[in-house]
């Protein structure tokens, strides 16, 4: 590159470089279009627009301004939380125990304390200002940490029903077999005293992970996590019994190649289009040869996304996998804001 074309690359001055110009033309198609307009579409109008529109639409603008202020205060009030500030807890039924003692109808759950229910009691815990956790009968849960945007608890055993409307990863729930992360959603988590955990997602998405494996579970699906094994493969609860049994066999027989292979074949044979979620998750768990089998079946259930090849999926190419997830049309965790109705249930 000579000095003149280097100057053109630097500040668009001097002799133009044809290759740089060509790339500018090509990549210009991806350029952000009218950034000011995009922000205005999703937030409040700017002052100039306000003043112009004010002449024509004073009542609408006044309402919009009030709405914006209300939303701003709502967002602030909802997401701010002082470190270690106790959570509100109330008894919904019976006599739950807080920190080992019978609790009043309304109380505070401090960091390190447990809330425990017996067969006849239930309790509701407010996760900062982001959502609620209903502690179902025969359960024990402990608050581990709380601060703005990062809240963590442990479900030792029992069942909790959670409704959250918050950015992904605001809430983590430890279990004996995996850590669950809320991605802006509603879900039920059950942990047996032996450590086996089952999460069923009713809205949004949940992530279930150990240091060696993480899975994401969409609404309508569930997954089981086992001690020492971690989270299993998610499946829709309305899948066939044979399909669900095969998924369980596949997840629990890592050391028995014959059972595992047979289970995989059964999964592929009995999968419906909707079960593509399970197959896509399995791609990370199998050999390249098995991956080709899965992709062949996937392609029949949900055609490969346009612009991507079978080989790219088999190679676990990120963009290709992302495109395949999008082709399932089941939304994605980033759309948690759209689940605002979840915030109205508590």
């Amino acid at each position: 590159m000579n000095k003149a074309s280097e100057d053109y690359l630097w500040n668009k001055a001097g002799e133009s470089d044809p290759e740089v110009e060509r790339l500018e033309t090509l990549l210009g198609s991806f350029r952000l279009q009218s950034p000011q307009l995009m922000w205005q579409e999703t937030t409040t109008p700017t002052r100039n627009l306000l003043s112009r529109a004010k002449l024509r639409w004073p009542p609408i603008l006044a309402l919009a301004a009030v709405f914006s202020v209300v939303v701003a205060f709502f967002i602030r009030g909802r997401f701010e939380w002082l470190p270690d500030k106790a959570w509100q807890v109330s008894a919904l039924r019976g006599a739950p125990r807080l920190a080992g003692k019978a609790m009043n109808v309304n109380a505070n759950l401090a960091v390190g304390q447990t809330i425990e229910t017996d067969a006849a009691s239930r309790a509701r815990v407010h996760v900062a200002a982001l959502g609620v956790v209903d502690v179902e009968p025969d359960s024990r849960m402990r608050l581990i940490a709380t601060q703005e945007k990062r809240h963590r608890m442990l479900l030792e055993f029992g069942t909790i029903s959670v409704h959250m409307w918050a950015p992904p990863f605001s809430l983590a729930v430890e279990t004996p077999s995996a850590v669950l992360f809320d991605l802006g959603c509603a879900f039920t988590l059950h942990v047996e005293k032996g450590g086996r955990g089952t999460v069923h997602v009713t809205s949004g998405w949940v992530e279930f992970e150990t240091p060696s494996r993480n899975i994401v579970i969409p609404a309508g699906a569930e997954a089981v996590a086992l001690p020492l094994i971690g989270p299993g493969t998610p499946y829709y609860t309305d899948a066939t019994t044979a399909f669900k049994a095969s998924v369980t066999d596949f997840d629990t027989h890592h050391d028995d190649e014959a059972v595992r292979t047979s289970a995989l074949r059964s999964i592929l044979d009995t999968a419906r289009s909707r079960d593509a979620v399970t197959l896509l998750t399995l791609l990370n768990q199998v050999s390249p040869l098995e991956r080709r089998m899965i992709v062949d079946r996937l392609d029949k259930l949900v055609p490969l996304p346009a612009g991507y090849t079978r080989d790219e999926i088999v190679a676990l190419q990120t963009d290709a996998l992302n495109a395949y997830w999008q082709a399932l049309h089941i939304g994605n965790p980033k759309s948690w804001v759209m689940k605002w109705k979840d915030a109205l249930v508590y």
Partner: protein
Amino acid sequence: MTLPVSTVPGPHDERRLIRKARTGDRAAFGELYRQYASMVHGLLLARVPPDVADDLLQEVFLKAMIQLNQLRDDDHFGAWIAAIARNRAVDHHRHAREIQSSEGLLELLSMEPNYSLLSEAQLALTVIRSLPDAYRETLTMRLAEGLSGPEIAVLTGLTPESVRVNLHRGMKLLRERLRQVDPPVGKRSGHE
């Protein structure tokens, strides 16, 4: 849209806008958005597909608006929001099945991408995204967003020298990689 350098915020203007935005002045934050959106969009384009970049851009600024009180140094708004954008892009990949087994990663690294199905623009962007971070970010800001080197320096907080070096070395590497693509850019059907 190319921002003339004069519209890039000076330190005084930026501090004033940030102070006002902290008090809930949405117009002030809108002005910060107008000034930094192209930089952030370019940075996202260097990491995620274009349609995703558009979505993430809004999320990044929404997050910045909510967390503006956590900005410790008002002189470093550009670097701060760039860090938010990079983290958001990483989160996106992570939660869109980015995590790959070591076996899968090794396999991916050893494979030749199938470029034949990509448009020329997609191809160019894909090749840019294969470059080291510092190069791909400055190149998407320069070539896709149309920002000049001096503008990139002001918006990112990098020194002009660093940006110049990144542009020069990145462009050199980009030219080399584009020539290795089969068919090369400029020789594909429908072009030239």
